[in-house]
């Protein structure tokens, strides 16, 4: 124990180089993870974190909200299914809008403001009334701030922003929520003479004690032409999302493997270089367990320092990140990555320990090392 920390203290340069390298690799891992969760959140946050317990899609839409078109009469049928406490229409329309004189894309959601699918919780401001919307907070980067007015193009409809919700962005564009009746009016202005106003989704609140998946399956079975899904499953099934999340899983997996291998290599080289000292220590009576403990202490200390450095670099990166694509430090993620790297580094270190154990203490006296 004592000798392990003394060794670290005496060769500060060598160990700072190592801690720096470990830190950078951990930063890379954290950065990739953060990037992928932010990107995915921008794609499907509105679905994944929806306040409804079950989301109902058209069954041929392949869980693609923009391809899903449900006849409004289906809301009553869904509400009648056992286990459904409430059902409400949800409409989505991607439009062009101006805010602060800038033209921008807007995903506009019409929801029952007190029913399933409502924007909840409102983190700042209040629920929208007529002529008002709440927006996802990330849209502030595009100029959508409380007090600003959104003008829809080309209809000229004006909507005042009165509140924010969080993590409710959809399809990587600014996302706003307003009352369903008003959304219908906007749809009709956008598509004059449309025979029906199709719903994108139906939001369902389940009765207490019911399971979302079971209720979803029951809806799929009993109501023709629709599919009821748990929001998290629906989000994961959104087209393109599995490509993105699989790509990122692959990237993060490979990076993780490399980080662990490289850190393992580091310690292996380090031990090999100190083999002579280790053998001498064994010759004067130190047990292999004692040396192994010292090595593990060094590895743990280094990885912890490395994590501090990596998290620090990530913090700096988040401070400098683009407001339109905010990156944040997730404490749970840092912990998971640290523990995982720690476990695998110690495992890699055990390889070096095997080498110490196998060395013959007598060779220290003979000078054959």
């Amino acid at each position, binding site marked *: 124990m004592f000798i392990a920390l003394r060794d670290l203290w005496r060769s500060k340069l060598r160990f700072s*180089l190592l801690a720096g390298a470990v830190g950078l690799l951990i930063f890379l891992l954290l950065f990739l993870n953060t990037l992928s969760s932010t990107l995915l959140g921008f794609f499907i946050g509105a679905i994944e974190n929806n306040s409804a317990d079950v989301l109902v899609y058209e069954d041929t839409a392949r869980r693609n909200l923009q391809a899903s078109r449900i006849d409004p009469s289906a809301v009553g049928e869904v509400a009648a299914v056992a286990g459904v406490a409430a059902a409400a229409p949800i409409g989505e329309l991607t439009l062009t809008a101006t805010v602060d004189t800038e033209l921008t894309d807007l995903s506009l959601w019409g929801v029952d403001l007190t029913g399933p699918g409502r924007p909840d919780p409102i983190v700042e401001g209040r629920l929208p009334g007529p002529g008002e919307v709440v927006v996802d907070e990330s849209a502030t980067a595009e100029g959508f701030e409380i007090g600003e007015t959104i003008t829809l193009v080309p209809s000229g409809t004006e909507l005042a922003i009165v509140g924010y919700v969080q993590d409710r962005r959809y399809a990587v564009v600014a996302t706003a929520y307003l009352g369903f009746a008003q959304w219908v009016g906007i749809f009709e202005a956008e598509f004059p003479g449309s025979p029906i106003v199709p719903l994108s989704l139906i939001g369902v609140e389940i009765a207490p004690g019911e399971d979302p998946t079971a209720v979803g399956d029951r809806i799929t079975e009993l109501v023709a032409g629709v599919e009821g899904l748990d929001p998290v499953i629906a989000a994961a099934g959104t087209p393109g999302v599995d490509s993105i999340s699989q790509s990122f899983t692959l990237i993060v997996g490979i990076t993780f493997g490399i980080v662990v291998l490289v850190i393992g290599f580091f310690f292996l080289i380090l031990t090999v270089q100190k083999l002579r000292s280790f053998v001498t220590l064994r010759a004067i009576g130190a047990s292999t367990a004692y040396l192994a403990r010292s090595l593990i202490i060094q590895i743990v200390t280094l990885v912890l320092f490395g994590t501090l450095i990596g998290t620090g670099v990530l913090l700096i990166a988040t401070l400098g990140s683009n407001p339109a694509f905010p990156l944040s430090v997730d404490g749970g993620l840092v912990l998971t990555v640290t523990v995982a790297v720690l476990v695998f580094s110690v495992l890699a270190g055990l390889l070096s320990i095997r080498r110490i154990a196998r060395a013959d203490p007598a060779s220290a006296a003979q000078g054959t090392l």
Partner: protein
Amino acid sequence: MQLALAEIRRRRGRWASIIGAVAFIVFLVLILAALADGLFIGSTGALRNSDADAFVYSADGRRSLVRSELPIGDLAAVAEVEGVAEAGALGVLLATAATDGDLFDIAVIGHLPAHVGEPTTLTEGRRPQTGERLVGLADVSLREKGIGLGSSVLLTGSAQPVEVIGFVSDARYLLADTLWVTLETWESLRFEIRPETRGRGSVAQAFPIVVADGAAVDTVVAAVDAAFGTTETVTTDEAILSLPGVEQQASTFTAIIVVSFVVVGIVIALFFALITLEKRGQLAILKAIGSSNWLLLRGVLVQALIASVAGYLLGFALSRLLALILPAAVPVEFLAGTARTLFFATIVMGAVGAVLSFRRIIRIDPASALGGEA
């Protein structure tokens, strides 16, 4: 030089570790680049694979093929604008279709046969004739869905099957398989599947244009917008980057690749610095018996280059092996250009790593070999 090579030979274990580390890094970056290229190629084929110099959109469509709408009657006027040699029309309908009960996404793209905008890479069969209804060209990716020449594609919500009469390559749109039909067929499918669009009348969603020989693209682009006032005309490159998600994906991946490369570059450099640090004693002895700084530096550089090249080759081979076992949902595309760039970048990175330990070597005092403090 001899010494450097001999060291690698003698200490195979350690150098195998270093080469292994470089190989993994090269492997990571190659896979990342292949993913980025795969996403880009699969998303943008429909626009890249055309002769168009620029695309005309409606101003409120924000360069989105899906949301832009232009009265089809304006086509003649666009073709009349000075500097426009030829104009075509495009419309896109995102839909689903099924073969053997399996639903898949499909983008039906309406175009004018024999006009600019049609995909240039016909690989099999023939193109639709002007006015020919319910026949189309399929992207070769549709073969995986069991579609061949003469197959019919029936869209969900439609009663009008489209017969496939030819195949084109590299013509996908936003990672969806595409079916290229005449503008008339596209319109009738659109009215059927999206009845709310009937009220908008006959429209196209973009006019691809070819600029006359000798005319500057920028000038013609400005002339079109000036003539209409309600359009936004962009060059083909801008149109590609404006496809939803394409620019974000490209910049996200560039960020990942650059960060990965910088981080692992530094790590490799640290690796070399560490190894030099460990060899201080031996290097001091070499200097004491008369080796010049230059000789030692050259040795380190040669070692770094060998490690980089060997690491690159191994990483390259690994990435190709992984590509064989990847699931189909992961779109990877290996481009020779990317591999070449990375090769040079790896060499440079290895050299930089070596150069970083130069100062340390130069500072070694030969006398320390005697003092035993090294």
